[in-house]
């Protein structure tokens, strides 16, 4: 079997001073991640020759006539699947009121989209936050 992991990451950034005393900053990144088990398949090995494992349980589940068969493992590769996308955005502006006093306002947006929610549950989440700050030098 193969286990594959892939990740694409793009990012953009800028730092501008369009007019005196004003600075504009921004960052954006996008990540797409994937992981999975490939080429995973078992043919049935039944009968095992084991009296206990050879119990016929087809009356309970016609798709699984025997108590144990390696073919029953074929479904579990799905639990290895990983697929998510993540966006991180920051936009901010800093303004110098005087040589001593400055203010800044920064906006953050973070989003994670979890397409495969096995094992740790759904990790998807979207957050935004706004940060304001005043600085003074003396």
């Amino acid at each position, binding site marked *: 079997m193969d286990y594959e992991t892939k*990740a694409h990451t793009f990012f953009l950034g800028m730092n501008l001073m369009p007019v005196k005393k004003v600075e504009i900053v921004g960052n954006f990144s996008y990540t797409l991640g994937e992981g999975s088990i490939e080429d995973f398949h078992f043919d049935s*090995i039944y009968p095992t020759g084991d009296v206990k494992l050879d119990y016929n349980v087809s009356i309970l589940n016609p798709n699984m006539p025997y*108590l144990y068969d390696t073919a029953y*493992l074929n479904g579990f590769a799905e639990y290895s699947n990983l697929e998510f996308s*993540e966006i991180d955005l920051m936009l901010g502006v800093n303004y110098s009121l005087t040589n001593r006093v400055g203010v800044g306002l920064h906006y953050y947006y973070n989003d994670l989209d979890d397409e495969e929610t096995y094992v740790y*549950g759904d990790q998807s989440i979207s*957050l935004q936050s706004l940060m304001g700050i005043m600085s003074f030098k003396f």
Partner: protein
Amino acid sequence: MKKGILITTLLACLSLLNVNLVMAGDAKSADKPYEAEINVGGTLADDLDDKEDGAKGVSEYNSIYDKSSSVYLGGKLLYRSNSFDFDANGRFQDSDDQAYGANLSLNRIFIYKTKYNEFLHRTDHDYLRNLQAHIFRADSDGAAGKADPTGLPFACPDPNNTAFCNALPDTDSKTPGWQNARATLGAANVYYTDHNPNANYETSYADWTNKFKLNLPNLPQLKLGFDHRYQRREGCAQSKTMSKCSGCHIESFSKSVDETTNEYSPYVDVQMGPLAVKYTYSYRQFEDDSESMHNTYSNLASAHVAPFTSNLQFDGSEGALPFSRTPDSIKSTHALKTRLDVTKNNIFTTGIVYSKTDNQSTDGSYNPLTGKYDTELQMDSVSVMAKWHTKLNKRLSFTVHGKYQDIDNDELFIDVNDNNYLPSLASGASKVPRSQYYGLEAGYWDWIRKSGYDSEIYSFGADIAYKATHSLHIKGGYDYHLEHRDNYEHHDVPEDTTKHTFKLSGDWHAKRNVKFGLGYKLMLANDAYAVTNAMSPPDGSFGSYACPSVSGTESFDRSYDPNIYSQRTKDRSNQPDLAHEFNLKLNLMPTNTFNTNFYAKYRIAENSEIEGGNWEQNLFNGGVNLVLTPSQKMTFTAGYNYFFDTYDSNYCVAIYDG
């Protein structure tokens, strides 16, 4: 809440925060011995999806995302004078997100540096749902319709076999303790219990370092120092344990975390002409005051299906047993390092390190089931290294290095518990030692556990650097590595692993605005780390495996050998015996305002020595960075990175014979 309304609200709140105007003062000036900066602000956060707290996603290290607001306080202070230098900085955003630091110098004689950092780490909650990939359904209610892709309803697997079904009296959900039926059924099954399904796990880390240094004015060649590191981890984590044999019952519990590490490292540094000598003694203490976890494991099938002859060391009959513990320990280290500048272009360095680690949680009255061995277990390590670097001329330099390390870990006497054999379910029957039942001497299965850490490691190598031209630099090297494992027979691993690594790289500054770099590394290994006799031949021949003939389903008295263990004749490994690694980097500056950087790494590795099927790896990482600077007041950046990694290996099916 709609985004527009939210933003308006955030801005309104922010304007209130900004009223917290700070002190005023002057900017740095030449005649002022001090500078200071104070930052005051706040953050308003919003979880747009109103997700439950457990969805950590991008907030793994974000301590404030589940709080609507937080205050930000920060500042810097710098003071300089002829004899006294001091600077400090601090940042507080949340009780779980703060950092401080300070440096102090008195006449450059006494120097003190300190840093403190505290942050929150949200950790995963494994809901164990992947364990539904088994035969029986796992949920405690056993209800049909549960999202279980492979599970069968939990019921007597052969309703026509009345005797067998009657041996499973607690399959009725109305019977107290019926869930344990799954652990006591003598069939291939696995199930789980998450005792805290709604718990959120997070740990708060606090790191504090202090460095003191004393430069004696009358003895400039002598320096004394003392380093201290403190780390504390507090919070709640998930811990798991498992009952096994007749059924694999995985249980998950919440566990408090309260761990402290303190490390004290005094040192002395002496410079005697061309020779520098530094001796450091380090004393590290780890204490775990976390919650003591205990679990009463599932009972074996012997309680239901006679005469089941279990071979487990413990089950529910042993009562509550400890699990998920990290032992308290003390590590002492002596390190002596020297550097001899024979000439300006000939430098010889040596080092010798001895360390001793004591496990302080094993010295209780002897009881292997509780991890007590009547002694503090100890691990010693000695390593010796040397390196010689010489610059033969302006173009050619040469380095030779070697290292030897010896690790010695205590061995342990394991008193195998053979008192849990129940020969009969007849009324009044009691357990007897298994050795007695089989007519063997007492302690027949006792053994000495020898550590897998016991080893000797040898390595040496040589590197050469050659400046062919002003713009072309070439480097080459060879490294040899040998690891000898003293107790390889006890751990089913190779006795010796040797590795040869060859390196070659070059940097070419083709033009003023073009730089080009290439690198290649080849690794060849003999007997890479592997588990020997780990699997049956991968030719499918074992598919016809059959247990010893048995007369009835109740007879579980059969052995794993020779029908299972002796069939495992092939090795498994995920370590390569051959690896190629290529590196490429290219830097182009088409114009003075546009800079580009390309990079790529490709690694192909395999292990074809192992007979249990080859192991292969293909890894690629590459990308491009672009930087555009139209003017000094304008910078744009862009980039892309692609990562690909694949492993190709045989999957080994576990053979279970309950």
